């Protein structure tokens, strides 16, 4: 009884440890670290994330049938959210004239203080004693004559023309590149600054988002409840907290699902093939142990796992189980002590582990840091797996094998076909692949593939919807310009502006919006201080004249606020500070365009490339300090880079392996057979990718070296077994054939379980590798023996046949 319960208890205990290890792992939802740093697009995205993405800033979108429905809903929703003081720190809406009058004084004042002295001089001249009354009279006349009442209204709050002569007069407004309301007014966004949790921790963010979701749901039900259909609205959300919570949760789920799926499928496979529960239980315990140890080491070494690395656990499970199977089968064939077992198969397992780990470590040659991290983790896990199996599972395997004979296994591996069929397949399949390439669609790389994108992402859907409504067809691309300080930033901006203008003249860009006037300009501020001081001294006179001209307290409030703000900025300027706008509206408005962080400053410009996917415009405008965040050109760049990578990794590896194989085999026939298995596997993948929806992208293409490695591995094992047996196909099939088939199937399960992963890249990598490994297994176990017999025709080999179940 005790003997039966013990494995269950141990498996459960180690399983719990493994689950605890998974739960302890911190997942990083940040995908920018996974991109090649030397690409301007990758740098641009990372800088946008670093400088401008606010972890706590949720974007709430409101959509309705009419502009009025949306406007009223946004006002009510904003008021409701402002009351949730435990969840919301601040909230920002589209800049309206009403808000500008009430809160915009500090921003308007800063715009003049930071602008060019020439423009400020002209303002001073207009407002000089004796002239300002004429300005007011002209304004009154325009208020009276204005065709549109709205224009009259705006002018009545700004009779001195402080707003209309603001920072972007005569140029294209940088804020216009990032609107918060659709042109038709039926879509609007709110920026909600959250509080109450650590927004760098996605688990806490998820909790905060759940509460926000509930608040929004309740508000929406109440709002839509008593209204006509045309006054109802839809509310969605996106932005950093939504992405963080979604990606973090998906990563947790991906790892758990893929590991559980792999373990279950491998268990089912083992049980179907071996019909034994005790060794299965211990094997599972060993696999869980490997996972727990590897995850703990990974956490200590890396701190956080990326969205790509979560797939390593399933791959590891699929590979590590092979060592356990080899040990158990050897123990059944040659019962003995654990030491004897290790002596017999230990070197083989260690060499296999080292070579497989080397293949995974070769992913470090890839330009994708995310893929390199995945390779490193699998390599580490494989080495851990070899050690755990040799020293943890081997004693158990030898003990269990002593109690059971090697007989009684099902003869489940299919026999090799006759020589004629095998040779015909060796010729036909590569020919079919060539035919597919000629008559089918050439399997190129997907041009708009984004490997790190989550497949089913509501936050991404809302994000795309928002871009569509706010930007429509005119999709601007943000460019980030960085410098050590604001003086340098203006120098960089000027250089960037010149390059962008040249690119526009060359037809590469059709729109360029520079943020210069929103970037604090210490030189302008120093020069403007004296003029502003003189203007502030005129405040009393100007306000008196406005009063006499007939403006009410409401009518002069904006002018008064501008004057007060100037006074404040003068004080800051005298302290030698670079003056930034005061007031929450001013701070937030400028923070959308300019940011200062970690001893560096950054500003956002907006570009509209004529052909976004073409990289010539990127090369024309970018340098070390100027980068763009464009997904279309990033996709192109990644594809170019991966194509280079494949040849850079693949060709040297191929040459080295051919040389090594020649030395190992010392037989040109066996070398040809191995190369033929690789060619056959490759040809099959070509046919599959031409005629099925499976396609190549910048991520799964990196699986090719892995497939190459496994194909090689399997063929070496089979050829050596065939040599040892003197070409006895039946013996090889029942021995090494079974082991290779189980290894192939378990590895395919490990990779195949990644098909459920939420990241596109990981999922496609899993699918391609699973398909490739299955092909490799079939070729090595079924076709290779026939080819071997055909090529070694002089050898006294025995044909294969299926024996009844023994």
């Amino acid at each position, binding site marked *: 009884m005790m003997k039966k319960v013990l494995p269950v208890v141990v498996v459960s205990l180690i399983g719990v440890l493994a689950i605890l290890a998974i739960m302890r792992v911190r997942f990083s939802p940040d995908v920018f670290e996974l991109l090649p740093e030397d690409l301007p697009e990758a740098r641009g995205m990372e800088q946008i994330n670093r400088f401008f993405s606010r972890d706590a800033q949720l974007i709430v979108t409101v959509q309705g049938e009419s502009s*009025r429905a949306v406007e009223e809903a946004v006002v009510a929703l904003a008021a409701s959210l402002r009351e949730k003081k435990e969840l919301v720190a601040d909230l920002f809406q589209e800049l309206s004239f009403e808000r500008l009058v009430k809160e915009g004084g500090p921003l308007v004042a800063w715009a003049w203080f930071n602008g060019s002295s020439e423009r400020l001089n002209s303002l001073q001249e207009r407002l000089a004693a004796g002239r300002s009354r004429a300005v007011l009279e002209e304004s009154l006349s325009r208020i009276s004559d204005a065709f549109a009442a709205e224009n009259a209204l705006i002018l*009545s709050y700004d009779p001195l023309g402080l707003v209309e002569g603001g920072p972007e007069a005569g140029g294209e407004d940088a804020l216009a590149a990032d609107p918060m309301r659709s042109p038709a007014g039926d879509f609007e966004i709110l920026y909600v600054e959250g509080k109450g949790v650590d927004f760098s921790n996605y688990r806490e963010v998820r909790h905060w988002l759940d509460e926000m979701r509930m608040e929004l749901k309740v508000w929406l039900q109440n709002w839509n409840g008593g209204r006509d259909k*045309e006054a109802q609205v839809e509310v969605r959300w996106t932005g950093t907290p939504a992405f963080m919570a979604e990606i973090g949760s998906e990563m947790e789920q991906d790892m758990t699902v893929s590991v559980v799926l792999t373990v279950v499928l491998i268990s089912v496979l083992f049980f179907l093939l071996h019909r034994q529960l005790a060794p299965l239980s211990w094997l599972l315990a060993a696999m869980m142990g490997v996972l727990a140890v590897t995850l703990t080491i990974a956490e200590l070494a890396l701190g956080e796992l990326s969205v790509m690395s979560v797939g390593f656990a399933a791959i590891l499970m699929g590979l590590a189980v092979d060592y356990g199977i080899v040990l158990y089968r050897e123990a059944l064939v040659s019962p003995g002590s654990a030491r004897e077992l290790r002596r017999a198969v230990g070197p083989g397992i260690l060499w296999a582990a080292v070579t497989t780990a080397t293949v995974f470590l070769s992913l470090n040659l890839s330009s994708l840091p995310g893929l390199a991290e995945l390779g490193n983790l699998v390599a580490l896990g494989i080495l851990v797996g070899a050690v755990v199996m040799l020293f943890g599972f081997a004693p158990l395997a030898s003990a269990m094998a002593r109690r059971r004979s090697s007989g009684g296994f099902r003869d489940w591996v299919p026999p090799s076909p006759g020589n004629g069929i095998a040779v015909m397949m060796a010729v036909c399949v590569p020919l079919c692949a060539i035919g597919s390439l000629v008559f089918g669609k050439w399997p190129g790389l997907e041009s708009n593939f984004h490997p790190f994108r989550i497949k089913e992402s509501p936050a991404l859907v809302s994000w795309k919807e928002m871009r569509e409504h706010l930007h429509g067809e005119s999709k601007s691309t943000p460019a980030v310009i960085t410098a050590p300080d604001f003086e340098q930033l203006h120098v960089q901006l000027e250089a960037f502006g010149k390059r962008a203008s040249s690119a526009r003249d060359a037809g590469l860009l059709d729109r360029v919006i520079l943020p210069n006037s929103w970037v604090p300009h210490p030189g302008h501020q120093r020069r403007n201080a004296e003029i502003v001081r003189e203007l502030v001294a005129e405040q009393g006179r100007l306000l008196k004249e406005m009063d006499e001209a007939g403006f009410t307290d409401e*009518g002069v409030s904006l002018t008064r606020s501008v004057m007060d703000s100037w006074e404040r900025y003068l004080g800051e300027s005298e302290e030698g500070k670079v003056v930034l706008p005061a007031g929450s509206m001013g701070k937030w408005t400028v923070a959308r365009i300019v940011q200062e962080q970690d001893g560096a400053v950054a500003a956002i410009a907006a570009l509209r490339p004529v052909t976004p996917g073409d990289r010539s415009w990127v090369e024309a405008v970018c340098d070390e300090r100027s980068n763009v965040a464009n997904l279309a050109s990033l996709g192109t760049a990644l594809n170019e880079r991966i194509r280079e990578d494949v040849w850079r990794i693949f060709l040297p590896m191929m040459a080295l392996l051919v040389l090594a194989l020649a030395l190992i085999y010392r037989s040109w026939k066996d070398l040809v057979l191995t190369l033929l298995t690789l060619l056959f596997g490759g040809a099959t993948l070509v046919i599959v990718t031409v005629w099925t929806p499976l396609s190549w992208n910048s991520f799964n293409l990196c699986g090719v070296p892995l497939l190459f490695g496994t194909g090689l591995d399997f063929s070496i094992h089979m050829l050596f077994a065939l040599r040892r047996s003197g070409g006895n196909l039946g013996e090889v099939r029942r021995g090494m054939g079974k082991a290779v088939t189980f290894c192939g199937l378990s590895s395919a399960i490990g990779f195949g379980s990644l098909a459920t992963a939420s990241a596109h890249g990981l999922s496609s990598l899993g699918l391609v590798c699973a398909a490739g490994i299955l092909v490799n297994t079939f070729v090595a176990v079924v076709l290779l023996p026939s080819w071997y017999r055909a090529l070694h025709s002089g050898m006294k080999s025995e044909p294969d046949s299926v024996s009844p179940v023994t």
Partner: protein
Amino acid sequence: MYLVTVNVLFIGVLSVGLLRADTGEAAVKQWLATNRGVDTLKVEFTQTRKLTSLKSVIRQRGFLWVDRRGEGSFRWQTGDPPGTIVTRKGGQLLIVRPRSRQYERRPAGESGSSMAILAEGFPRSWEEFQRKYHLVGVKSRGEVHRINVQPRGQLDRGIQLLTFVTGGARGVLQALEVKFRDGSSQQIVFDKVERRLPLSAELFSPDLSGYQATKFK
């Protein structure tokens, strides 16, 4: 007996509601009928602007000519001599300030303002009315009906309520009132309306000799 009383009251309340709704819609339709078949129009109006930022009320007299034939044109001007003239011909809007002898041309689509209601002419069918406005309600006193609407689309930004005031036996439009969100308001009273007048093309293409092109704020 109790049940019968409740039913009668219920039906009564429903009937009053339906009748009121019907009366409101009927007032609108009566006004719309006056616009039907009217292709040209000349309106003499008095415009009163009451702005919260100004101590006094601003009054201006002006003229509006509308020609809905072909691609549609209008001319709007205030003051005598005119302070501002705005014309639309086809897709172009022309703003002229005779005092400063300056003008600006801009695409007509950019003139998203409450005055576009006047300039585009009034709706002539119930469908057109519903496409342009959301009927908030109609207040009637004698023959005077105040048709309160909210414009659909971009025009409604900043406008709290728009009111068409109709009166007389035929339900002719007498005034237009706009109430803004900040509490300001504008009233345009139609002093004289002439329909089906022969309007010359020159009226919508003012002579710009000696004028300078500019971009008004």
